[in-house]
């Protein structure tokens, strides 16, 4: 069972994305966090338990309380985490070149995916795990 972490405040997008994932593979568990702060807290909570660490992280940029960029700042500050190999995908509706350039400069970001997340992309990500 693969664990996907989905950090996004858009309930409808989350609902539809979960549906898409389940269509592709039944062997995936999706954990949803509505903002960066909640996701960081969760990662800190499971720090000692490597079995609970996610296999993939999907991160939205535009969120209340702690947005995607702020999450990335905090994420990189997390100490002693075996998160180095965890692929992190920014999944954003943004088509702004500025945001794409900015994400290209952050080493922990695997790829910038423009919404929607389609079935084919999921399959590709799953195969690469």
């Amino acid at each position, binding site marked *: 069972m693969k664990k996907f972490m989905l950090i996004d405040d858009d309930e409808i997008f989350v609902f539809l994305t979960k549906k898409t994932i389940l269509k592709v593979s039944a062997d995936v568990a999706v954990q949803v966090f509505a903002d960066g702060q909640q996701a960081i807290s969760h990662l800190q909570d499971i720090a000692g338990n490597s079995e609970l660490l996610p296999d993939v992280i999907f991160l939205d940029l535009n969120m209340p309380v702690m947005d995607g960029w702020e999450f990335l700042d905090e994420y990189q500050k997390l100490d002693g985490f075996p998160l180095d190999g965890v692929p992190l995908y920014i999944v954003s509706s943004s088509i*702004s070149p500025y945001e794409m350039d900015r994400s290209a400069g952050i080493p922990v970001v695997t790829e910038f995916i423009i919404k929607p997340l389609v079935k084919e992309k999921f399959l590709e990500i799953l195969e690469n795990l």
Partner: protein
Amino acid sequence: MINQSPTPDQANTPAILHLLGIIDAEPEDEFDNIVRLACLLTAAPAATLTFINQDRNLCKSAAGIDIADLERADQQLKSYSSVYREPIKFNENLLLGHLTVAFTQPTDLTTGQMEGLKLLSKQLGYLLQMRLPVANRSVRDFYESILNNIPTDIVVFDTEHRYLFANPGAIKDEELRKFIIGKDDFEYAVYRKRDPAIAIERRAQFQQVKDTGNTISWEENQKTADGNIVTHLRRMFPVNDDQGKLVMVIGFGIDITERKELENKQRKIMEQLAVQHKQSIDFCNVVSHNLRGPLINLGMLTEFIRESEDPGEQQLLISKMEPVIDNLKSTFNELVESIQVRQETDLKMDELNLNACLSETVRNLFFELKKVDGNIHADFSDAPILYCPQKYLSSIFHNLISNAIHYHSPERPLSIKLLTQAKKNKIVLTVQDNGQGIDLLKHKHNIFKIGKVFHRRPGAKGLGLFMTKTQVEAIGGTIWVDSEPDQGARFSIEFVNQSSEAL
């Protein structure tokens, strides 16, 4: 006997006579004296000084000839039996005229007298040469007149910082200008009963130039009598002799007020452009997040509906479309509105009664306020009237009070306090609540940005404060916020041009 005859062969002689101020001038002592000296030297009864002017000789000065009309004095000499003429040369080659002595009896001059006469005519040449730079002015006057008429401030100091020269640009008053020569700034300050601070500063600058041998320059602002600011660019630089020894220090100032004003204008435009550039990036972001997001959801929903064969599931998916469309609609409307605000250049100001305007907002938000048990207290006694477009004030009240309602603290009943303070031509409106507040340490750069929300609240899109800021800035005002988490927030808006002239 005539030693030398007049030969007016120089075509430009009259021009030079004009330039030297000889023609049509009053009799002058310096010429009369030389003619009298010629008489004394040779014991001649008569002498003349003549200049060659076109075809005739012009007599400038005569001695021993009893005639009122100088023009005919030269003619008179023809009746004398001995006449001696010495040529007067300008620049040692141009013949300008003659110094003549005449005797009634045949007379021979001694060698000494001949030589004396030659020397006198030579002196005359020098005298004329000194007149050349500008008619009737000495060389010193000539250069001073240039320095005095250049539209800059010029002062010259000796090596001890005493004034050698100041032009009217530097010191306007002629009396002061004369006073200052040979004195320093400290004496000037005492004389004019001024604060010696400037003298101390100038002395330090002078010392720096003297010690380092380098030019220094600085800009200086002064307030004129009519309250305008005038900016001067000042320079102080050393002047050395051939051996590199300091001879004097020149101070130089030029009015750069116009250039300064242009620079300021340019800086303001650059700042404005930077703000606009940032706004357009923000705008691009909000379009991609807040508009593109819902559109993608609609696209995905449609695809699922098409693929689904279960009518129950189809109904569920359709019901999820409605909030997405509503969200899209309201975001779109707010975006259009914010563009309109920024494009409105000819804003009409209204004279608004703050209490009346607030009452209307409160009426519109009555149920929302009731839900959170909110109460509003307004004190507009210090400034009851505001000049602002009506729709802006309504929107500002609506946004700030809606915000206070949305982000109220569940732990206490909501209380909103509104206050105005009049400050000269400005009015500051504050709206203070006791709600959740905003963590400004984290969000101070983002608070008025488009598309920013700070709380977990369904439907929060972060357009209200951006809209408010856009409107406030469109009428030249400013908005800021003081807040701490769980301590409530206080928004302040400064409105400018608060007089009936604004209408």
